[in-house]
């Protein structure tokens, strides 16, 4: 019994133990199931999150702003050295043999170029090998090197002059999988992830190897993260180094690999990885980095350059080649070494690449600070047609009308001239300011724009926002109003320049005076404008009626409010240099008003055309009236206030222009044009104190300096058929008057039978 009892007890104990065990088992199992469910739900959730993020991944890509391309053709005046300069600016590399786009070589009096592909509005201009032959200062011929075929006209790749950045200040040049250079893939594999194309997101062998290496080295020398893990880290996770984050990263990497192809993952990686910092702006992706460090497209980088960028993955700031060139060089060579070790590059290539300098450019070329006033104008024009978000995020390509040569010539001239003027006038350095616009009058294209003497500053864009009294620049509008009535006025009509006293509506008297403080009695109309006499002009304006003069100003494109006061006849009218340029465009084009524009076309991120800014013209005045006005402005240069042009620019004659000076010499203006180029210059002081400069001693001097370098085509006046020329006594100067004869233009039938000599 006791035995039995004891057996029973034993059994009971065993049973209770069994029950306890099974309870425990069940409890464990339940916990595992619950935990498993929680884990599974968590996994499902992050899986969903990953795919949502990855599928919907839309990188914000800044808009890219380009200058106009340099058009070269046989017969164009453009020197060999200028083309070379331009090629270097566009980071074309001088080589001995042309092997790829972005290269050139000199061959005596010709240049051979391997051009880059570029998407223009009217189609793609493919990369090709071209020979440009020069004949002195002219281009003699252009041909394709391989076929020998004549090429009539080529466009040299426009320069990237600025970007319009996303709000979070990221910069990115998007690269598609096909565009990833093979050497980049190889370098990434060699350095970052040897088994990328085989693993499932994690690389156990890689982890073991890195643990071993790190143990041997006694410090963290190699990370075991795969490219996929690194991508996850960049896209989803914070920088903190915790165990749970690592687990998350591994899970997510596996899921990413499950859902997406290696190509997709690699493309995302190449575009996402952080590779540097430009001030507040982070540099993401290899395409952006190629531009940031080398100012070249990724496709043009050699093995050494690619290796430098791949080296930055480990620590873009620590290995920053601009701040730590030695460290960067060491890292680059390590990358090259790994590539060589793994058989990706030959011993020869390894040696060659190692011998190369870093080759990093000092500053990124597209820095918007280079032409800030111009970029400001482009932004304002874009805002009319685009939402700011599209500009910041959609990677639009903006093709502008900026002529880099003209812009730089103008920038340098202003800098030098203002310092000279300050010295002459006894001003402290930095007292004077200037603004300028250069435009092509037949297309309305703005070729250059300066809003500050310091080219890097644009806190105040004077070209667009400084509205100043325009002085005598208003006069052509008054004379145009008169000449539009050929029955009443012609270029030799008699005007009265004797003393004028005007009663104003406020009861005060206004007595306009001439700059020389004299009156000149009866004078021919032409002399009144050529000498810029004020009294006769005011009298003429009043005779014509203020409303008619105001209408002419509006027709010329002035959109600012114009006060209905007699003082506007002497230019008491505040306009920006840009608006003055618009006004003179209409005069210079010979009767067509064309809105000034800074954008030729907008293309999307893939180079597909979105919008073109057509040439749109409006005839605002009879061609013969416009012709006569232009003629008067050529006479201002020949015999009047702008006569210095004939001495300083003799080979460019004829040109047309008008000086403008305001009360107490506060503003100095000059507007002048040749056959194609029109430029308006303003010089003055921000506080509106006297600048001690007339139009001809200040602004015109800068204009002359600039045109000496730009060498605009002389103005060819083509007279409309309604114009006839008749000989009369020369009325240019009182002393010459009636001594010799001179031909003057008239609207047919309006030439006077008899004139008085004065």
């Amino acid at each position: 019994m006791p035995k039995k009892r004891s057996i029973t007890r034993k059994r009971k104990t065993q049973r209770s133990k069994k029950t306890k065990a099974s309870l425990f088992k069940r409890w464990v199992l339940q916990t595992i199931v619950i935990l498993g469910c929680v884990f599974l739900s968590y996994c499902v959730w992050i899986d969903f999150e990953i795919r949502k993020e990855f599928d919907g991944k839309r990188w914000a890509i800044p808009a890219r702003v380009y200058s106009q391309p340099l058009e070269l053709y046989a017969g164009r005046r453009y020197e060999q050295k200028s083309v070379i300069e331009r090629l270097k600016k566009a980071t074309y590399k001088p080589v001995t043999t042309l092997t790829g786009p972005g290269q050139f070589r000199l061959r005596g009096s010709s240049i051979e170029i391997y051009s880059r592909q570029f998407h223009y509005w009217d189609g793609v201009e493919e990369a090709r090998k071209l020979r440009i032959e020069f004949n002195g200062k002219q281009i003699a011929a252009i041909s394709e090197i391989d076929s020998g075929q004549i090429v009539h006209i080529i466009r040299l790749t426009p320069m990237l002059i600025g970007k319009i950045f996303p709000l979070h200040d990221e910069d990115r040049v998007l690269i598609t999988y096909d565009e990833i250079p093979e050497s980049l893939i190889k370098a990434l594999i060699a350095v970052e992830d040897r088994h990328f194309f085989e693993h499932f997101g994690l690389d156990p062998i890689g982890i073991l190897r890195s643990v071993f290496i790190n143990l041997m080295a006694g410090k963290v020398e190699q990370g075991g993260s795969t490219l996929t893990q690194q991508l996850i880290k960049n896209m989803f996770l914070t920088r903190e180094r915790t165990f749970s984050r690592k687990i998350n990263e591994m899970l997510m990497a596996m899921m990413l690999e499950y859902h997406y192809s290696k190509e997709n993952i690699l493309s995302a990686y190449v575009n996402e990885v952080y590779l540097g910092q430009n001030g507040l702006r982070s540099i993401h992706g290899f395409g952006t980095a190629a531009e940031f460090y080398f100012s070249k497209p990724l496709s043009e980088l050699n093995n050494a350059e690619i290796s430098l960028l791949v080296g930055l993955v480990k620590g873009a700031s620590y290995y920053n080649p601009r701040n730590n060139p030695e460290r960067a060089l060491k890292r680059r060579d390590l990358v090259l070494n790994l590539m060589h070790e793994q058989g990706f590059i030959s011993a020869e290539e390894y040696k060659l690449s190692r011998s190369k300098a870093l080759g990093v450019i000092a500053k990124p070329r597209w820095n918007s600070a280079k032409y800030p006033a111009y970029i400001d104008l482009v932004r304002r024009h874009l805002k009319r047609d685009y939402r700011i978000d599209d500009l910041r995020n959609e990677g639009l390509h903006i093709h502008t009308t900026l002529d880099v040569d003209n812009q730089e010539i103008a920038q340098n001239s202003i800098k030098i001239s203002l310092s000279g003027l300050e010295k002459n006038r006894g001003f402290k350095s930095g007292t004077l300011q200037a603004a300028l616009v250069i435009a092509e009058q037949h297309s309305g294209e703005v070729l250059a724009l300066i809003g500050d003497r310091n080219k890097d500053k644009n806190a105040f864009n004077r070209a667009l926002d400084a509205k100043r009294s325009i002085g005598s620049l208003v006069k052509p509008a008054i004379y145009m109003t008169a000449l539009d009535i050929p029955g009443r006025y012609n270029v030799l009509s008699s005007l009265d320049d004797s003393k004028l006293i005007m009663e104003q509506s406020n009861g005060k008297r206004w007595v306009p005076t001439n700059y020389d403080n004299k009156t000149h009695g009866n004078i021919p109309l032409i002399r009144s404008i050529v000498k810029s006499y004020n009294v006769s002009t005011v009298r003429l304006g009043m005779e014509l009626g203020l409303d008619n003069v105001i209408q002419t100003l509006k027709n010329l494109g002035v959109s600012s409010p114009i006060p209905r006061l007699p003082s506007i006849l002497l230019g008491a009218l505040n306009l920006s240099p840009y608006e003055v340029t618009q006004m003179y465009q209409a005069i210079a084009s010979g009767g067509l008003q064309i809105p000034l524009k800074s954008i030729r076309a907008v293309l999307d991120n893939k180079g597909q055309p979105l919008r073109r800014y057509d040439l749109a013209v409006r005839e605002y005045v009879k061609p013969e009236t416009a012709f006569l006005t232009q003629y008067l402005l050529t006479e201002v240069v020949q015999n009047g206030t702008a006569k210095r042009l004939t001495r300083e620019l003799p080979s460019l004659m004829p040109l047309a222009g008008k000086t403008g000076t305001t009360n107490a010499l506060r503003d100095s203006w000059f507007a002048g044009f040749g056959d194609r180029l029109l430029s308006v210059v303003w010089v003055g002081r921000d506080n509106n104190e006297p600048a001690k400069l007339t139009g001809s001693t200040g602004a015109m001097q800068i204009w002359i300096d600039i045109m000496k370098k730009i060498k605009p085509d002389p103005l060819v006046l083509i007279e409309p058929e309604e114009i006839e020329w008749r000989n009369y006594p020369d009325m240019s100067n009182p002393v010459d008057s009636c001594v010799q004869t001179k031909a003057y233009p008239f609207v047919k039938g309006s030439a006077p039978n008899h004139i008085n000599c004065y």
Partner: protein
Amino acid sequence: MNNYSPILILLMLGLTACAEQATKSVVLVPVEERNSPNIDNRSTTTSEAAGLDKSKQAINKPRESVIVALLDDADNLANAGKSDQAADTIERALRIEPRNAFLWHRLALIRIQQQQWQQAITMARKSNALATNNDKLKSENWGVIALAYEKLGNQQKANEARMKQKAQG
């Protein structure tokens, strides 16, 4: 995924069982699809082509071959119904020779193709202002002006232009 271990594959399959159908395509290009600008599909009419031929013959300047090449390009584009591109090419030529009356005439013809009647009139008039001694070109420009005024419904001005076209032709 060929080298994945079966357990991992099972694990991953399990993990995603409740999730949506796996998506294989990734949108890596963040730009919305946009339509290209509307292009007029009409081809150049015979008279337009004739106008172009005459203009080519009459150009006699040092940059002649460049202008002719661009006119050729513009012609091909216009014939392919790409009037916007054709206009772009003429504008390129105009930047080289802004006072070339034939180019303005050609641009006026493209504006006709684009049904921009007022622009066509202004450009034809500009061409006339520059075509000092070329009566034929002037006559053709008056033809363009007449056509544009007709389209605008201004019969009186159209008739005046027709008269001038005849007088000069």
